[in-house]
């Protein structure tokens, strides 16, 4: 198909890969009809490899072959990225020796040949390949994924090709760049450096730092501001003498950093905020969180001065910082906020496809992304067959699903909830969730320790039926979109904090998820039933996975996770499975 003859039935496949969180997304008829991260299929958390399985499923879902895809868009320009890498390594000779060896091996053997890899592994015709840019993909993911025709767009990430941060204006004539801040000045990379210093894995543990921050006070703010600080013009700067990510492949901080903050926390070390050492780590987390928020607010305010627009779109990995998102809305003149649900690199797949749809092919504006379950689903018959083959004696509840699940939750059971297609993005939004009673004071510890086997300090999010959120939470105006995707942390109303101990974090906040009937009817019905039984249409909702594993995707992965943790009951489609229903498996022998 030529570009001039593109029509609404044109099919565009977006691909993100090679760094972390590879994904594929398919756009047809102006709708994102399928989108999935590769990790959900490969079961390797943050899988960065070319998303062969995710692509295969997207095509199957659309009922087409790769030959019928009109354009395949990669989410960034790999040669530009390689250029940045080489230039940084030249500038930091000889400290960059190990990084040069390591990255050159990776690039020369794999990443540089992404075009060939896409052709070979996905079967793409080379003429169909297009290349977006990293931040442009992020910007397109949120702007074209929203319902707004005009918006200020802020993309903040670790680093793309050269830029770590970009300010844009989106309108009827497309997305126009205004300013960028270049590597090594990066909020995302500095936050990740603190993540590593606090004993968590980079690109995985940033949200743990956010959770840890609530236990501390920002008493290290002055020290943090020596590392990264907001400038008067709204930009920010980084002092690289404290950081090593621009020349090291393994470390992100220097000795000077340790002189400022003391000994780092080792991975896996217990975190107890009541000890002086634990409090020090929490204070450091609180301080970097505070400075990050100040930098983001500075950027958003500058963008508002440039555009004068009332609506702000946010994307890039830093936009997953749900505490900072609330600060942005509260401390800037914007009236409304939109955030792409998979704001990190995975979202680049949708962004690349939507950018090509709107700006390269110039097709009519696509529909808003409003439903979370863009991933693969399994039919009732498929689930039934799997249960039968695995000798599991489940009960098919049919119409009684919501009422029975609500009764189990009200009785204090922890349930697994697997319904429809799996979610787009890192949050469990009632398609692949673990649910429990938020009013049980022991539930947070129980789910952390017995169910998910993770750190005790980690908070849990609530899902609340749309219309009831104001009863429990202080909802900022203009947050309608992010609270439907669990992307904002808001205060729990003071009179509800004691009543909702399992979802109220130490600082009296919660990362809220508001559930619409249109977006997720079964989950909405469950909350309704819970409301009838307990008077509270609200539930503790955490992702259905164990520490270090991706969220479950298929019924088989859900059953395998269910068997290995303290979930009491599993709801798989309309089937209810008790642990005792799995006894048939024990009798399986040769």
């Amino acid at each position, binding site marked *: 198909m030529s*570009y001039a003859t593109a029509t609404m039935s044109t099919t565009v496949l977006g691909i993100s890969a090679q760094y972390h969180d590879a994904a594929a997304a398919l756009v047809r008829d102006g709708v994102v009809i399928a989108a999935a991260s590769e990790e959900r299929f490969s079961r390797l958390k943050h899988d960065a490899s070319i998303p062969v399985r995710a692509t295969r499923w997207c095509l199957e879902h659309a009922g087409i072959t790769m030959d019928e895809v009109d354009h395949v868009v990669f989410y960034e320009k790999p040669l530009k990225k390689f250029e940045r890498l080489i230039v940084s390594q030249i500038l930091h000779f000889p400290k960059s020796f190990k990084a040069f*060896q390591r990255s050159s091996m990776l690039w020369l053997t794999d990443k540089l040949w992404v075009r060939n890899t896409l052709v070979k592994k996905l079967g793409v015709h080379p003429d169909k390949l297009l290349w977006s840019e990293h931040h442009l993909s992020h910007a397109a993911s949120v702007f074209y994924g929203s319902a707004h025709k005009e918006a200020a767009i802020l993309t903040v990430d670790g680093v793309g090709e050269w830029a770590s941060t970009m300010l844009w204006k989106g309108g009827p004539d497309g997305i126009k*760049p205004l300013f*960028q801040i270049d590597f090594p*000045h990066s909020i995302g990379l500095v936050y990740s450096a603190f993540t590593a210093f606090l004993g968590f894995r980079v690109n995985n543990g940033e949200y743990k730092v956010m959770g840890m921050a609530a236990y501390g006070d920002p008493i290290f703010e002055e020290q943090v501001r020596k590392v990264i600080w907001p400038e008067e013009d709204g930009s920010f700067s980084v002092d690289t003498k404290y950081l090593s990510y621009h020349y090291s492949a393994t470390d992100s901080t220097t000795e000077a950093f340790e002189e400022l903050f003391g000994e780092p926390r080792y991975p896996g070390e217990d975190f107890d905020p009541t000890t002086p050492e634990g409090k020090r780590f929490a204070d450091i987390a609180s301080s970097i969180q505070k400075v990050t928020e100040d930098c983001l607010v500075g950027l958003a305010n500058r963008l508002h001065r440039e555009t004068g627009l009332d609506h702000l779109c946010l994307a890039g990995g830093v936009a997953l910082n749900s505490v900072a998102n609330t600060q942005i809305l509260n401390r800037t003149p914007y009236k409304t906020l939109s955030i792409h649900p998979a704001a990190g690199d995975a979202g680049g797949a949708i962004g690349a496809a939507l950018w090509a749809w709107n700006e390269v092919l110039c097709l009519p504006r696509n529909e808003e992304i409003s439903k979370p379950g863009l991933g693969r689903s399994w039919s009732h018959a498929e689930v039934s067959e799997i249960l039968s083959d695995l000798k599991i004696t489940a009960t098919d509840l049919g119409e009684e699903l919501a009422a029975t699940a609500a009764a189990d939750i009200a009785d204090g059971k922890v349930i697994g909830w697997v319904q429809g297609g799996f979610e787009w993005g890192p949050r469990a939004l009632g398609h692949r969730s673990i649910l429990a009673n938020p009013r049980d004071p022991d539930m947070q510890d129980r789910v952390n320790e017995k169910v998910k086997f993770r750190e005790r300090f980690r908070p849990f999010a609530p899902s609340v039926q749309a219309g009831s959120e104001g009863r429990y939470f202080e909802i900022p105006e203009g947050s309608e979109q992010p609270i439907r995707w669990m992307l904002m942390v808001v205060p729990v109303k003071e009179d509800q904090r004691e009543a909702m101990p399992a979802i109220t974090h130490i600082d009296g906040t919660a990362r809220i998820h508001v559930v619409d009937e249109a977006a997720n009817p079964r989950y909405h019905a469950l909350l309704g039933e819970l409301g009838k039984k307990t008077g509270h249409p609200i539930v503790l909702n955490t992702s259905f996975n164990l520490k*270090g594993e991706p969220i479950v995707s298929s019924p088989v992965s859900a059953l395998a996770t269910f068997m290995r943790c303290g979930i009491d009951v599993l709801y798989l489609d309309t089937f209810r499975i008790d642990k005792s229903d799995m006894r048939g498996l024990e009798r399986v022998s040769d």
Partner: protein
Amino acid sequence: MILERRDWVLWMISSIVWRIPGRDSIKMAGFSHTEAGSGLDMLMAVEETPRRDMRAKYFRHALDELKHAGLFRKRALALATKPKGRAQAMLDDSSFIQEHGINDSDSLFSKLGELEFLAFVWIAERRGAQQFDVYSDLMKDDADSCTMFAEIAGDERFHIAYSRAELDRYVSGGEAKEVKAAIGRVKRRRWLEAWLRLSVIMGDTMSKLWLGLLYVVVLGPSSIFARLIEKPNRGFVAISVPEEDILERARMQA
């Protein structure tokens, strides 16, 4: 314990390697990932097998492997001396999950097919049992590790038995030649993979040497010039929209 000849080799090598301080926890962390990888392979087999009667066996096998991954993880952390940095970092990083089919774009099951997959399971489990027998012997002074290896050995007996029984069913169904050929292919592939691993190590070492040379000879002098012309890039950089056609830009990787 009666060891086969090759196991004596493994025993001798391991008895040296495992004495290196901190090595036991790293090895356990490595085993944890290997078992996790096997668990994922088995879960894929549950989803992909056309033989519905095999699903439950593969599923139970998968649960065993994932349980073993957890047991090894616990031992790795228990054996790690403070700070637990390397073992913990390794355990927290799923990219260490290696040697399982999912690392490729197709699962191990879909690459091998049912019969060869069963042959693979039978051979790999037998070999695994022999190896763990050696490690158990080496760690006989560590009661917790011995208990763990004994528990794993019990599960492996089931894995070896069911895979062998299935292969025997193929044999009695008149597919003796196919079974023999499948076992032969799996054995050859194991040797080939061992050779490939060695080649990768050698290639890696050579590449590092060449890249090291390139770094000194090319990047060294370039860095002097680069620093002379380096522009400060702090703060906002204003961007003008490129004049070239958007389609032309979209077609370029740079």
